[in-house]
């Protein structure tokens, strides 16, 4: 069995799976899709009331939550769509141009 963790962009064809089959769940976690981003949300922790409105609206599950508090963005999966900024009732999220949070 070939596992996703053993495959990368240097793996020769002989060691890949037929048809690109993936033999385990949840492998999107390991795959960096944040590089597609052209706009980036910035999290201002001091302004956040942890109302959690942004979390279910995020189409990419890129807002991690721990112990009832939202954490900073998961930039490995955030596509920069800006929905979170739009739904945030507080000035806790602002969008900046470009793929990197500055």
């Amino acid at each position, binding site marked *: 069995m070939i596992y996703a963790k053993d495959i990368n962009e240097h*793996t020769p*064809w002989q060691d890949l799976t*037929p*048809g*690109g*089959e*993936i033999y385990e769940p949840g492998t999107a976690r390991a795959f960096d899709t944040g590089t597609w981003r052209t706009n980036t949300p910035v999290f201002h922790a001091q302004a956040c009331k942890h109302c959690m409105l942004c979390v279910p609206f995020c189409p990419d599950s890129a807002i991690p939550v721990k112990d009832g508090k939202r954490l900073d963005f998961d930039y490995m999966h955030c596509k920069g769509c800006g929905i979170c900024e739009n739904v945030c009732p507080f000035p806790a999220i602002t969008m900046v141009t470009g793929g990197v949070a500055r």
Partner: protein
Amino acid sequence: MSNRLSGNEAVAYAMKQINPDVMGAFPITPSTEIPEYFAQFVADGEVNTEYVTVESEHSSMSVCIAAQAAGARAVSATSSCGLALMYELLYVAASCRLPITLACVNRALSGPININADHSDSMGARDSGWIQIYAENNQEAYDNFIMAMPIGETPSVRLPVMSCMDGFITSHAVENIELLATDAVRKFIGEYNPENYLLKKENPLAVGPYDVSPYYMEHKVLEAEAIKAAKARILEVAAEFEMISGRSYGLFEEYRMEDAELALVLIGSTAGTAKAAIDKLRENGVKAGLVKIRVFRPFPGEELARALANTRAVAVMDKSEGFSANGGPLFAETRSALYDLKERPYLINIVYGLGGRDVKTEDVEKVFCRLANIAETGEIGPIYTHMGQRSKEDIA
């Protein structure tokens, strides 16, 4: 046991003996009878196949893909525009490496719309990654269908198989054929036990994920290796099949080729007509022969080059146009295969029999007459011509 069956009946009967898990069923002339006969087997409880009636061939192939990915054996049957409507899914089936079995009853692909036999439907799908095996007659249609699963399901191959026969000429003509006992068929094809499948609960599987550029090329190489591996497997399965049936199959059939100087290369039911013409020519001392291509994908290039190496002139007969303006698809493959020979025969291409246009023994004799003339004079004349059309010009 011997029986009188049409080509469609023979394939439906093979399906009954196989008892597949799922059939994606949608009718289209001339393949309609296959799902029709099979529906009766389902209704009579002779098979326990999940018979899924769908709204199009796009869906019948989608059903097959989903079922096969789930770990089931899936079959379907189609023709012409039905195959064209499956086009996208044919590529999905092959690239997901799902060994689905499809009966393709060859019919002209529109337009103008026409329901009769030629190979333009399956030739359009020749680059989809499917194994393509063509039958000359009802017996071969039956035999090829039974051999399809042991070929496609082999782990080193894992590719779908298109088992083709000529519409009406083969699908609707009734012939005496030899059927195997159902037990023998079941034993021959065995159980389908893929290593991984969607319903294997202890091992979740994702099939057909998006493939980014850093991986796509590698997966295509894997697929190319699989179809290369299919060639040896096809011969292995043919040898095993001969043990239970007494009938021998190769990648192609050589008919009176031992000392042939003039030869035809063609596919399908026209082989019967050509054999009759060749027998007659042989009586008159013409060293005529035939190579009937059985397996078109993978193409038996090296083997075909060896078979034609000692001929002087060859006519490749395409029962589909191709519109390359440079000859039909079988011609392109054959001419490419012969390139590596040190001494090559003269090679011409004749496109014939489109949309059910009849071909008679006299037509085949005319082709051999042209080949004899080429071999004698070394004057090849026009390389790519059509035969059987009304014309103001007189071309054999």
